[in-house]
């Protein structure tokens, strides 16, 4: 369970408070270099607080957040600069690296996400949800990150679109060794994609382990895989739809096509 690779994100005993309300209570987690890690949990579990703490947007009351290398965020709800063009959105992703030669060159994003080439001069606010999510990916990539934090990949998107995006994530992970912390309400999607996962509930880590272990755990399955948390995924309605066998996830770091196909196949079955 402990990653053998050195961690790029290390959160230890993190406490975040707003006034007297405790949003995160001694949360610890790690993301190893090149690892795909899922964090699942219901609404209000403290996922956004964790994201904001990792990104340095909120200051923790105690505990530590260590990020070695660069971290970029794909924020919840895409968060486009709606009045600006797709190209400008991408360029602003390189703000932390401004001044470096070629930092604002967007062509490398279009290589990875060719779907965006067509709309590069369009105002980001006019794009579809899936396209915006892709711009948000691209914007994060412009920071040349070692790890991306993806906050709610599937929120508000059709399953087919989500599957395509998940595929992109997987190949970025496989091709470039990009570490990913995927924060999701849709536990099935997250555990299919990632090798390891954590379950966050009411500000605390309730369970952790390999994606298989988590998917097999009766508790998690009942709470997240069959429950209302999967409403975004019309295919998986009953608890009998437990995750497929674990071999896929073990392969997450290797070539991603096989398991990806499996995921998109399942996701695309409306």
């Amino acid at each position: 369970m402990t990653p053998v690779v050195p961690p790029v994100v290390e959160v230890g005993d993190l406490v975040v408070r707003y006034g007297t309300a405790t949003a995160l209570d001694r949360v610890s987690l790690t993301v190893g270099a090149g690892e795909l890690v899922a964090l699942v949990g219901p609404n209000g579990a403290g996922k956004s607080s964790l994201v904001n703490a990792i990104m340095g947007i909120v200051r923790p009351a105690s505990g530590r957040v260590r990020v070695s290398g660069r971290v970029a965020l794909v924020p919840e709800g895409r968060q486009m600069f709606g009045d600006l063009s797709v190209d400008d959105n991408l360029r602003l992703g390189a703000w932390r690296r401004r001044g470096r030669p070629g930092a604002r060159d967007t062509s490398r994003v279009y290589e990875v996400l060719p779907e965006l080439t067509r709309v590069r001069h369009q105002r980001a606010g006019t794009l579809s949800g899936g396209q915006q999510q892709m711009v948000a990916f691209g914007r994060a990539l412009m920071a040349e990150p070692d790890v991306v934090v993806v906050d709610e990949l599937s929120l508000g998107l059709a399953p087919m679109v989500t599957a395509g995006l998940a595929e992109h994530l997987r190949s970025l992970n496989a091709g470039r060794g990009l570490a990913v912390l995927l924060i999701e309400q849709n536990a099935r999607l997250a555990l299919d994609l990632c090798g390891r996962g954590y379950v966050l509930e009411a500000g605390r880590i309730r369970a952790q382990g390999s994606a298989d272990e988590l998917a097999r755990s009766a508790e998690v399955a009942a709470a997240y895989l069959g429950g209302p948390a999967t409403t975004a995924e019309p295919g998986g309605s009953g608890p009998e739809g437990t995750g497929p066998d674990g071999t896929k996830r073990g392969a997450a770091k290797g070539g991603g096509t096989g398991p990806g196909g499996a995921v998109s196949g399942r996701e695309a079955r409306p």
Partner: protein
Amino acid sequence: MSDFLQYLISGLAVGCGFALLASGLVTIHRVTRVVNFAQGMFAVVAGLTAGSLLSAGLPHGLAEVAAVAVAGAAGLLVGLIATGRRGTSAQSALIVTLGLGFVAYAVEIMIWGDNPRSHPGLGGSVQFAGAFVQKQSFLVIGVTAVVFAALWLFFNRSYPGKALSACASNPYAARAVGIDVTRMGLVAFALGGMLGGTAGVLLTPMLPISYNSDVLLITNGFAAAVLGGLNRPGPALAGALVLGVAEAMVAGYYEAAYQTVVALALMLAIMIWQSSRRTALQEETAR
């Protein structure tokens, strides 16, 4: 006819001054959501500073630029106080800028006294299609055109300008990509100070200025800016020109005393008309 042209051009010139002031308000509001009540103060400070520097022997041009820089510093200071403390809401910041206006009164009276002052601008007038028009009017119009073009280029073509627009468009995302939104707000305040200052140094030769001229300046600037919802410089420019010309026409053909009444009534009408197309829910969610 020549009268009309004369009123039109001097009205456009005054309108340009309002436009500069309004563009400062818009720049600050876009990025920080703060309606800066001290915007008129920037113009007063710059106008009075330019006069002092000129009488101290500084040449034209240098004195005005230095005065605009002083206004920019004043803008930065206002921004620091109004938005520097974490958790200050935009509404509280408005009241803080009102308070800063008072403090500025104290400073201005100490330095310059409480009588209206003016300084010579571009002297003389030119005959233009039968009308005598002050050269200063053309200067104001020309400088405003240049400033607006530069602003447009800055916001639409430069990387820092786009980062400012990004803060206006989506502060959360701006923070996520590493833009320091608070610092960008200060940049906006400094820029707003310089824009207000430019209005001040250009208008002072045409309309003598005293410490409390800021109320009329801010109301006119606000009236113009509100046309673009305080967020768009284009409509603000148009609104300012309409205001300036309307005031000049009222003063020229009817009664100078009523010119501000017309401008203010126009502002009220525009705001009420705009509000009739908007609901409380839209405003509260847009907050």
